[in-house]
């Protein structure tokens, strides 16, 4: 039939393929794209951004080193993600509530957990979750943190607090239905929540393009009525500036925001035997390494005479020494007792638990 169609789906689909504008302050060649934003930072602030990224890279290297020595449990490598992780968390305040995923240990530490606690978490000791930071332990179930973020944000709002809830997931995480439910609830109640999607291109081995037909993950927020923005995740000044603007907008009572940062994980999915060469070529990887967030910041600072390689080497050594101290402290902890684990199942133990507590207390006293 050659009759004119009532609707042009091809055109609608084509309209959906418009890519969002990616926000940058400094590009991969260290060229300043947004002079106004760049000038708003003092020299000290610029140095601070660099220091945080150097700290995160050193944490990654030293922790992976511990991992190869068999001294860590589950740990997700973070090299390549320094700009998105440090940039976004530096825009938050201590009263904000962090709901991290497993690759967000560096943000958890910046938000107030100690490195020792992070190592306890990795090794599977409850002391790792007893940090004073206003945060949950890293979430393993993809999507769960997005749901709980809506709830925490509602609680903060009801308490009348000057605080937001912020959370992270990856590109794969946006496929999980719970991620949508969390954003949708936050939108429906106009809650103070910031949803950050760190799109590093792969969910273990599955590439971003296989996750969804959406051309940008920012589109995932549109259905929930939430403003979203795509940011160069290798540009810490952009990540920080956008997260800071989002926090202000959210705190003003405007409801939630979603940020997608475009980044790359240089290493494996986790310390548990993932081999990226099975699904990713070196050719594909190289452009990302060239866009490294530390390279461009180093160049900017060096040009301004604010940074030197000696200074950086000294810092790295200092940081790595602090991680060595942290793991020593982690080593010194008493192993967990099964009787203590049984005791923390309920506030008021059940009769069965009472019997099991007695049984294990006896076993463990020997």
């Amino acid at each position: 039939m050659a009759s004119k169609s009532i609707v042009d789906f091809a055109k609608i689909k084509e309209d959906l393929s418009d890519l969002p504008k990616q926000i940058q302050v400094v590009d991969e060649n260290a060229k300043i794209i947004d002079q106004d934003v760049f000038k708003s930072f003092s020299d000290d602030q610029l140095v601070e951004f660099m220091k945080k990224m150097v700290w995160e890279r050193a944490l990654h290297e030293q922790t992976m080193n511990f991992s190869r020595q068999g001294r860590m449990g589950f740990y997700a490598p973070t090299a390549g993600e320094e700009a998105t992780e440090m940039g976004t968390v530096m825009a938050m305040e201590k009263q904000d509530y962090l709901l991290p995923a497993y690759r967000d240990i560096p943000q958890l530490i910046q938000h107030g957990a100690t490195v020792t606690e992070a190592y306890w978490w990795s090794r599977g000791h409850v002391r790792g979750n007893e940090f004073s930071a206003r945060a949950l332990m890293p979430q393993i179930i993809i999507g769960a943190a997005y749901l709980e973020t809506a709830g925490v944000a509602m609680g903060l709002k009801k308490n009348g607090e000057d605080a937001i809830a912020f959370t992270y997931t990856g590109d794969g995480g946006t496929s999980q239905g719970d991620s949508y439910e969390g954003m949708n609830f936050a939108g429906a109640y106009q809650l103070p929540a910031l949803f950050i999607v760190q799109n590093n291109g792969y969910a273990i081995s599955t590439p971003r393009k296989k996750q969804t037909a959406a051309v940008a993950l920012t589109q995932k927020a549109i259905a929930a009525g939430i403003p979203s923005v795509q940011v160069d995740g290798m540009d810490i000044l952009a990540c920080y500036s956008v997260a800071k603007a989002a926090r202000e907008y959210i705190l003003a009572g405007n409801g939630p925001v979603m940020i997608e940062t475009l980044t790359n994980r240089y290493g494996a999915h986790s310390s548990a035997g993932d081999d990226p060469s099975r699904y990713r070529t070196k050719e594909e990887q190289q452009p990302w390494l060239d866009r490294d967030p530390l390279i461009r910041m180093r160049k900017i600072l060096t040009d301004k005479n604010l940074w030197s390689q000696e200074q950086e080497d000294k810092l790295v050594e200092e940081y790595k020494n602090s991680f060595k101290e942290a793991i020593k402290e982690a080593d010194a902890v008493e192993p967990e007792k099964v009787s203590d684990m049984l005791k923390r199942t309920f506030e008021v133990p059940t009769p069965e638990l009472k019997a099991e507590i007695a049984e294990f207390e006896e076993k463990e006293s020997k």
Partner: protein
Amino acid sequence: MTKKSYIQAITDALDIMLKEDPKTLIFGEDVGKNGGVFRTTQGLQEKYGEDRVFDTPLAESGIMGLAIGLGLTGWRPIPEIQFMGFTFEAVDSIAGQMARMRFRFNGKKTSPITIRTPYGGGTHTAEMHSDNLENFFTGIPGLRVVMPSNPYDAKGLLISSIENNDPVLFLENLKLYRSVKDDIPDEKYTVPLDKANVVQEGNDITIVAYGAQVQEAQKAAEELAKDNISCEVIDLRTVSPIDTETIFKSIEKTHKVVIVQEAQKMAGVGAQVASAIAEDAILSLDAPVGRVAAPDSVYPFAQAEEVWIPRKAEIVEKVKEIINY
């Protein structure tokens, strides 16, 4: 004292706790203006405002996530899942997140949440509205499962559940909602969690039941009394954990037991009771454990429901079989 239905007793408990504790919140699908599809929350939004009693988007997982986050920020949530069959949508939130909170954070963070949801057969609903899913939830460390059998218990157990600082799955029987009425106190009272109740004393055999089956067991006991069989009827009230002490004490006297449940027979509450008896009280018995349960199919479509659900007749038959062993 006022004569109240099971559903009115629940509304009463919610009203009292909203009034008494400013941190309590009720939310779920249609619980606000509509007062819930069964009118359990009728009038509460009007009385306490939309900040305390509010509707949610239609997403069970989201409702549970909301509850967890509110629990973490100082609130005492009482979310409703419209029908228990819909809890499947929220299993990670309940089992993977909420029930583990105290354990994960060594008590520094908790989930003081009471999830209310209706379940149970005999009302000819659409699929996934009547399933007895307690068997599925009783094996989750950190979660209590409470199943009241009458209006007095419903009010007292719900208040205890809300006051408890750990998550409770509070199961409301659909058939009992309007079919039973009791004189219950108007003021606040509690019925303890984790404790079974001897609803009828007897000497010849113990019948262990919970939820709507307690009423069936009592009807069966009445009929069996005509044949001079004296039944002791125990209402578990809380099905996770199970109060085995009360059961053991009873069978020490009666030496016989029949365990009744409306749910399918496999791997559930009745099996747990039987296993506890086998492990710790087998020498009290002089006959095998008798069990009355639904057969192990998927919950039937409405037409076959009355054949599938065990009722008084099946209990009478099983008790006679065990008595005559």
